[in-house]
């Protein structure tokens, strides 16, 4: 593979990065902010769309040839799972950018850096999905996180936002430390008498298949690796930062962070777990324990929240638990179950991204000038005052709770059946129980919106909701319903795992 082909294989990432840089430059160097505002917003959208087209193109070729290729001396892999994750991340970024402009202007935060940072962190997440080497993984985790640290402190003048950024940054730095140390130990632990260790996931996979028993050093490394990634994916006991950061960050950032960071983290987790699958019996119980803790922890803590953003934060933790169930199912030595779980995860990531963006989109739609919508009380009687928002929110809540005919339901169903295929029946049952708990608090919001009288019956005047926010909500709504009813239309997602590099 020559140099140009290497670059071609990560073309969507390059497009996103280049767009980010151009936006950054144009924003900093132009004096007219009125022109700048359309330029930054429009150009970011354009770039993401271009990348989306490119990724879709590549995905199509990929599906036709079912050929996965590695680039840059094996450190980057482009298979259909990678490309699927690209598409999901790019859709998330698209929605996040659509959401942002009016909201940011209402809060006096409309600066071009916002779009550039969203683009950079998207590129980081995309690189996480395609990394086939732990070092590349680490670098891309940093690209993703550093941009998110800044974004969560984007409301510079607000204490809560500052606090969120600082907390996120400190804990994220710790997590990066764990991750890097884990990588170092994996490198040392995979060394044998004959050759040096490796950080390449494919090589690691081969080594584990051939040599069977992992050394203690390798196990320590894997444990640290999991801790680092669990921080990024906000799994329970490493979730402490999530509620504070989600609450403090500007809502459009929270929406993006909840979806984008999680997609990246789970793509990476899936890659690492697939590579480590040959020694699954050593670490799978730990992942399953984490999954159970995360599902119950997230759901139970969400029940007691009054603040909608906090509640959604805990709910996102619970969703991370469901995704972790898929990871666990994908790590068994059963190719069929593995593929089913990979596909289920891709589908669920898509569903999760869309419904999270939608739910936060409604919050943004409802936020008044200069003030965020925060508590459940703020939603009281919404069905009377703003029908569109209330019913959109209703659908998102139902989807998050996993009630048909929404995409959330189908996603859960796929994970459920993949788990059964993998023979982890108890985990599937636990997952079902956990989602029953979640229905309580999602319906609490529905109840508050639809079955309560508003405090003031007149129509509340919201800040001018731009077309962008409406578009986001409508797009999410449509996606959610269409693919909830016709999941087969996204068969491309379900087949995501067919051509991945690893075999457990």
């Amino acid at each position, binding site marked *: 593979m020559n*140099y140009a082909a290497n670059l071609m294989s990560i073309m969507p990432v390059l497009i996103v990065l280049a767009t980010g*840089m151009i936006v*950054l*430059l144009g*924003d*900093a*160097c132009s004096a007219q*902010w009125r022109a700048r505002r359309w330029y930054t917003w429009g150009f970011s959208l354009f770039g993401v769309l271009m990348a989306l087209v490119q990724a879709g193109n590549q995905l199509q070729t990929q599906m036709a040839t079912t050929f996965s290729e590695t680039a840059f001396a094996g450190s980057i892999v482009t298979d259909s799972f990678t490309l699927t994750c690209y598409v999901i991340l790019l859709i998330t970024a698209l929605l996040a950018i659509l959401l942002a402009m009016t909201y940011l202007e209402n809060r*006096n935060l*409309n600066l071009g850096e916002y779009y550039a940072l969203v683009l950079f962190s998207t590129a980081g997440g995309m690189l996480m999905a395609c990394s086939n080497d732990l070092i590349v993984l680490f670098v891309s985790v940093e690209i993703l996180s550093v941009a998110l640290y800044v974004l969560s402190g984007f409301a510079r003048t607000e204490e809560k936002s500052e606090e969120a950024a600082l907390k996120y940054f400190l804990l994220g730095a710790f997590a990066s430390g764990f991750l890097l140390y884990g990588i170092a130990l994996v490198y040392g632990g995979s060394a044998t008498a004959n050759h040096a260790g490796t950080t390449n996931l494919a090589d690691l996979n081969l080594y584990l298949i051939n040599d069977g028993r992992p050394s203690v050093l390798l196990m320590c490394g894997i444990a640290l690796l999991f801790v680092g990634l669990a921080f990024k994916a906000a799994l329970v006991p490493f979730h402490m930062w999530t509620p504070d950061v989600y609450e403090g960050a500007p809502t459009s950032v929270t929406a993006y962070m909840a979806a984008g960071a999680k997609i990246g983290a789970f793509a990476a987790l899936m890659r690492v777990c697939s590579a480590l699958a040959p020694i699954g019996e050593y670490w799978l119980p730990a992942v399953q324990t984490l999954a159970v803790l995360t599902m119950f922890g997230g759901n139970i803590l969400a029940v007691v929240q009054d603040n909608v953003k906090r509640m959604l934060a805990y709910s996102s933790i619970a969703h991370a638990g469901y995704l972790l169930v898929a990871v666990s199912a994908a790590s068994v030595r059963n190719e069929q179950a593995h593929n089913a779980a990979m596909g289920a995860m891709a589908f669920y990531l898509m569903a999760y991204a869309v419904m999270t963006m939608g739910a936060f989109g409604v919050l943004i739609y409802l936020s008044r000038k200069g003030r965020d919508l925060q508590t459940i009380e703020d939603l009281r009687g919404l069905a009377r005052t703003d029908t569109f928002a209330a019913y959109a929110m209703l659908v998102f809540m139902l989807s998050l709770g996993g009630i048909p005919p929404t995409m959330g339901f189908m996603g859960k169903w796929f994970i459920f059946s993949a788990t059964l295929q993998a023979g982890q029946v108890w985990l599937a049952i636990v997952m079902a129980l956990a989602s029953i708990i979640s229905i309580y608090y999602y319906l609490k919001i529905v109840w508050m919106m639809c079955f309560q009288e508003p405090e003031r019956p007149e129509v509340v005047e919201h800040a001018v909701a731009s077309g962008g926010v409406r578009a986001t909500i409508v797009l999410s709504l449509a996606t959610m319903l269409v693919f909830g009813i016709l999941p087969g239309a996204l068969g491309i997602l379900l087949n995501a795992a067919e051509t991945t590099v690893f075999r457990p």
Partner: protein
Amino acid sequence: MSGNHGDILAYVPLLVLIGVSTAIALAMVVGSFLLGPKKPTAYKATAYECGMTPIGSARERFPVKFYLIAMLFIVFDIETIFLYPWAVTYRAQGYDLKIFYFAEMLVFVAILFVGYFYILGRRALDWDESERAVARDPISPEILAPRPPIRFGNEKSGPVRRLPEPAHVPAYGAVSQEERIAALTSRRE
């Protein structure tokens, strides 16, 4: 040549040089400490502020611009460090590889220049604050609103903070200025 033990041993004379310079430095400090007279007085020991009584502590917050410069320095210094091995090996490459070397580093520096023009456009390198505020936040005029004047503590309304003076020095105004200076400049004991 690189990598053999001769190169490591070439550092030994450097260590000797560092040892000798340490000796010189210590000799200077110890020498003046031993040779000079010791006549400390309270007045001599106060911080020098052009003859005025020092106001407040000297370890205060200082402008954030210095931090900014330090952070930018790290970015660009690391970039320079990347350039060193490149520059050393560049000339020895064959023509084809040299094109690759050149293009690769050009891309790297181009990306760096994006960052450079960004900080330039954001006036991070301008030392003048008000200019930066205008460029930074065109939508928030409150930044430009007049601020209350900075107080140094020695305005008429504010209390004047003084360092405590030695007990034997008479209070200001109780005796004549000459007597007070004499007391201040006398020995502590």
